[in-house]
């Protein structure tokens, strides 16, 4: 039995390698199919995941502001926190004020810097987040206007107490966001309170909350009806409209995949039809030697499996390259490729190659040795 198996493998591999040009053409169609499938699959399933990671950065999806003109107190923040509870993935309160730099007014945002960076992961900092109480971040535009650089001292004063000497702070980093922060000075709440003298006066609290639109609006409802002088609002962030885009993208990719599978099947069927005709003499000879149609069919299917494996391997490699190219060029996303894409693609290719050969191999049983061996 073992010898039998060995001879089988020997026959199909010999046939495979001696027909390399045919094999290459046939496996090329498998490879192209496999490449497109694995490429599109990777784009469809890894890009949205990575995009949504990045899209979460487009701000929090839930904000709480004061109902009137009075800023929020620390107590109110605590109430809002308790309502939102554990569904908050990130939360940061902000305090805005104006300070003077060389008699010029600058807008300053005080916040819990680490938390703010978590809610706004799109912050790019050249330098470091402030760690000491005399360190600040300056927005990119501001830095350009006033030639602030990392390590530079910036003297700031509170306008109403302007007589005093300026407080010298060190720039620990330049903030690049492409948004409003680029025009701000950003510092910790402690640092800010040294100017204002008031701790815990907030203009806005930002939350990043996991959950769908209904969860969010019921949370907003809860805050608004808590009668605590706060106004909560759900903010549409891009990741919500983005689920729609993802779904459209995935549907599209499914349709394209089905078309590609069909095309690959057609191409394999056509190629194998030609191969069966080409090899009718060999098939007839094997029958004359006593081979049953099903034994010869098994040999052809074995060759198709090899074809699928080879095409799948080449295709998976090409597919990863394509997916990488697409995701970088079209989505500006770095692709994370799982190793199992390769065996998965190979398995799919084998299935496609075998299914594509089912029709052609049926012709094997119709080949009559007398017809094909007779010719002088």
């Amino acid at each position, binding site marked *: *039995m073992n*010898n*039998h198996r*060995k*001879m*089988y493998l*020997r*026959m199909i591999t*010999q*046939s495979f*390698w*001696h*027909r390399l040009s045919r094999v290459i053409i046939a496996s090329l169609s498998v490879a192209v199919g496999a490449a497109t499938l694995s490429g599109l699959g990777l784009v469809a399933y890894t890009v949205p995941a990575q995009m949504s990671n990045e899209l979460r950065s487009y701000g929090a999806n839930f904000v709480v502001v004061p109902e009137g003109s009075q800023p929020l107190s620390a107590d109110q923040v605590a109430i809002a926190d308790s309502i939102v509870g554990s569904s908050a993935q990130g939360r940061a309160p902000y305090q805005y004020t104006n300070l003077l730099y060389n008699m010029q007014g600058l807008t300053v945002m005080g916040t819990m810097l680490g938390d703010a960076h978590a809610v706004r992961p799109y912050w790019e900092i050249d330098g470091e987040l402030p760690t000491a109480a005399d360190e600040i971040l300056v927005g990119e535009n501001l830095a350009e206007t006033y030639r602030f650089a990392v390590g530079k001292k910036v003297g700031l004063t509170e306008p109403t107490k302007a007589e005093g000497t300026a407080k010298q702070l060190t720039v620990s980093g330049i903030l690049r966001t492409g948004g409003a922060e680029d025009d701000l000075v950003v510092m910790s709440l402690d640092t800010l309170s040294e100017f204002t003298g008031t701790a815990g006066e907030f203009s806005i609290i930002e939350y990043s909350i996991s959950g769908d639109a209904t969860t969010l609006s019921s949370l907003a409802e809860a805050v608004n009806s808590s009668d605590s002088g706060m106004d909560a609002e759900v903010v549409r962030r891009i990741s919500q409209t983005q689920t729609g885009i993802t779904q459209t993208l995935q549907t599209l990719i499914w349709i394209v995949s089905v078309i590609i599978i069909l095309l690959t099947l057609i191409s394999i069927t056509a190629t194998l039809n030609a191969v069966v005709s080409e090899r009718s*003499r*060999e098939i007839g*000879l*094997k*029958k*004359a*030697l*006593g*081979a*049953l*149609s099903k*034994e010869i069919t098994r040999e052809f299917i074995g060759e198709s499996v090899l074809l699928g494996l080879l095409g799948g391997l080449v295709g998976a490699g090409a597919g990863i390259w394509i997916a990488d190219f697409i995701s970088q060029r079209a989505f500006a996303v770095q692709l994370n490729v799982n190793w199992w894409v390769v065996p998965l693609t190979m398995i799919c290719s084998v299935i496609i190659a075998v299914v594509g050969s089912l029709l052609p191999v049926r012709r094997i049983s119709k080949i*009559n*040795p*007398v017809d094909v*061996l*007779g*010719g*002088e």
Partner: protein
Amino acid sequence: MTQTSWDSRILGNGAEPIYSVQQVSRRYGDLAALDNVTLDIAAGEWLSIVGPSGSGKSTLMNILGCMDSPTEGIVLLEGERLDKMGEPELANVRRMKIGLVFQQFHLVQHLTAVENVMLAQYYHSIPDEGEALAALERVGMADRATHLPRELSGGEQQRVCVARALINHPDVILADEPTGNLDEVNERIVIDFFHQLHDAGTTLIVVTHDAEVAAQGQRQIILEHGRIAREVFDLASTPTKGKPQNVEG
């Protein structure tokens, strides 16, 4: 078309023929490639089939080789009716009982000489490379065992075919013009080999145009227009060195 009483001369008394062809015709439309042929072939016999081109020699061989069936009449192989068999049974007969040698050699082009021999083993039972090499050795092809058919001369290819035909120790060797494409040296090798097989008791049925090859047989059948025109017994030219022994595997 006389049915000579040959059986006592070849068969001896009471022995069952390996093939019994009874009133067989094979028609293609109006054309009768075989026309009411009746013929018994003894186990261990060396039968030559001769006749002009188109006389039905290959048609008869194809029927004996279970690759074609008559439109009329019946054929018995070792007492079993071929017309009662389905394709799997016929394939089984081909692999177990028959060895084929063709004029056109017909080797699988992507397999080496030894693998072509092993192919017959593969469909018959279990491939055994050592045995296959030994068979090639017997036809003087051991040193070319790993060559592909296209790297072999016609004579060498035919010797590989002979090795393949005998590897499973078939009861019958059917050879349609086995020396038709061979030079004298290779013809000699093949004929000598047939003699060895014949001596070992194998039934040989050989179609040939070559009078010298035909004369090697114990009996010649001359086909004309699908009928047996004559039979010639040629015992003198082929002194049987061994007794037929191979009746029923």
